[in-house]
């Protein structure tokens, strides 16, 4: 790998916010293609962060620090990317379901999806089914992603899917779900397209749903 890309990749893995900005600027100045920086530096770095998380080497703090570095690198890179390169992987509307205010998991998934090249529309927490429907209708969204931390609120994933069906938009989007009490079996039962146990695997799932 090119030395400049290797440095960018390493900064993302280590969550070095200042370092990554410096190296991205230097790479752009040297005339390197922004898409290459994005894919082979930043996104590859975030994929490694995801792998380390799955392996139990990294936990939430390390992931957040890397995602933050990714975000500030993206702010520098964005003006240099073509419109196809921004959010090229797909558009995801993400939110924590109605009644549930826990947004830590949802935020992590959002950050990791952005880190993988998705455009993320964050609907926030305590999101009513109608709001998911509205997002699915208006924003040219590919995936609706729902999170719940509580056993008492995860049932609202089912009502949201029902609302998507009622509004006639269920077929135009993929639905993925996650959160502490959620399981693969639950995803099947309520008719979601997929379930991921953590933010890293949510990225893999989102990619596979759109492939």
């Amino acid at each position, binding site marked *: 790998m090119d030395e400049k890309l290797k440095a960018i990749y390493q900064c993302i893995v280590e969550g070095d916010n200042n370092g990554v900005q410096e190296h991205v600027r230097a790479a752009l100045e040297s005339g390197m293609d922004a898409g290459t920086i994005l894919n082979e530096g930043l996104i590859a770095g975030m994929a490694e962060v995801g792998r380390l998380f799955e392996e*139990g080497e*990294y936990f*939430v*703090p*390390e992931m957040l620090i890397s995602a933050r570095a990714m975000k500030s690198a993206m702010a520098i890179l964005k003006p240099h990317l073509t419109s196809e390169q921004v959010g090229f992987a797909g558009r995801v509307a993400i939110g924590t379901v109605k*009644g549930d205010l826990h947004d830590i998991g949802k935020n992590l998934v959002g950050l990791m999806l952005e880190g993988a090249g998705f455009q993320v529309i964050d609907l926030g927490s305590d999101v009513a089914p109608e709001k998911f429907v509205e997002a699915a209708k208006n924003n040219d969204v590919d995936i609706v992603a729902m999170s719940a931390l509580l056993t008492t609120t995860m049932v609202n994933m089912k009502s949201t899917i029902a609302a998507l069906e009622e509004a006639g938009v269920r077929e135009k989007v993929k639905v993925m779900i996650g959160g502490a009490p959620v*399981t693969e079996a639950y995803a099947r*039962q309520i008719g979601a397209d997929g379930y991921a146990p953590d933010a890293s695997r949510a990225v893999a799932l989102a990619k596979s749903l759109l492939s």
Partner: protein
Amino acid sequence: MISSRFFDLLHSGKPVVLDGATGTNLQARGLPTGTPSDVWVLDNPAEVIRLHHDFITAGAEVILTNTFGSSRLHLAHAGLDARFEETNRTAVALARQAAAGSEVLVAGSLGPLGEMLEPAGTLSAETAAQVYAEQARLLAEAGVDLLVIETQFDLNEALAAVRGVKSVTDLPLVCSFSYDRGTRTMMGLRPAQAAQALAGAGLAAIGINCGRSLEDNRRALDELRAATDLPIWFKPNAGLPHSDAEGRMIYDVTPAMMGEQVAGWVAGGAVLVGGCCGTSPEHLRAIAEAVRKVA
């Protein structure tokens, strides 16, 4: 002095029986989906008392107030901060009412604030400490026997919580963590690190609650026991849930299965035992019966 009753119980030489789950049981009793269980303190107090009572009948010696999500910050997220004082005071009164005429102690429950602390998030440790202090003061004034900071995952938040609570009351204090990534919390904290960081904090007990499977919690217990001299509070989930065709959560661990584990928990160093999510009054009865056998 009321608080000494907890220490008497703790040092009686036999394990102390705590209660079971609040949220999953109230949901089984009709708490609408999407409604935090704390809401029923004011909206359906009869059912809250009934659940406390069922745990007492099943053998609980300590019951927890239904105030897990009743910090001012947490209530504000749900637009319910106007209820802050009333809901905390009422929750203690309901538990007291259920415990009336018995020796059962009431523990004030303090749950995570639902926001991340610096540096991962934006909430300062100072603000977090104040928020915990404010709720602890209310619970103490309303007459709880002890306080329990539970389901913690971030050491910074737990330290702020302990500092905050200690600044307003001398009631016995327990601090309990949820090791929901096996034997690490979601922030990567290990039982030994929690024990070490809280060693000089003046806790009455250090604990494990919620988490993942019974097996994972048991491993966390072993790690914690090796790292602390404090009494251990142990309130695991009734195993990992799955859901049925209607989307209801099913906990496969039966009361008998949970009861069978109790001797191992006590042998493994747990002094205060109960259950978290999925632990019904029937599960608790099995736990209490098993405790009587080992005592």
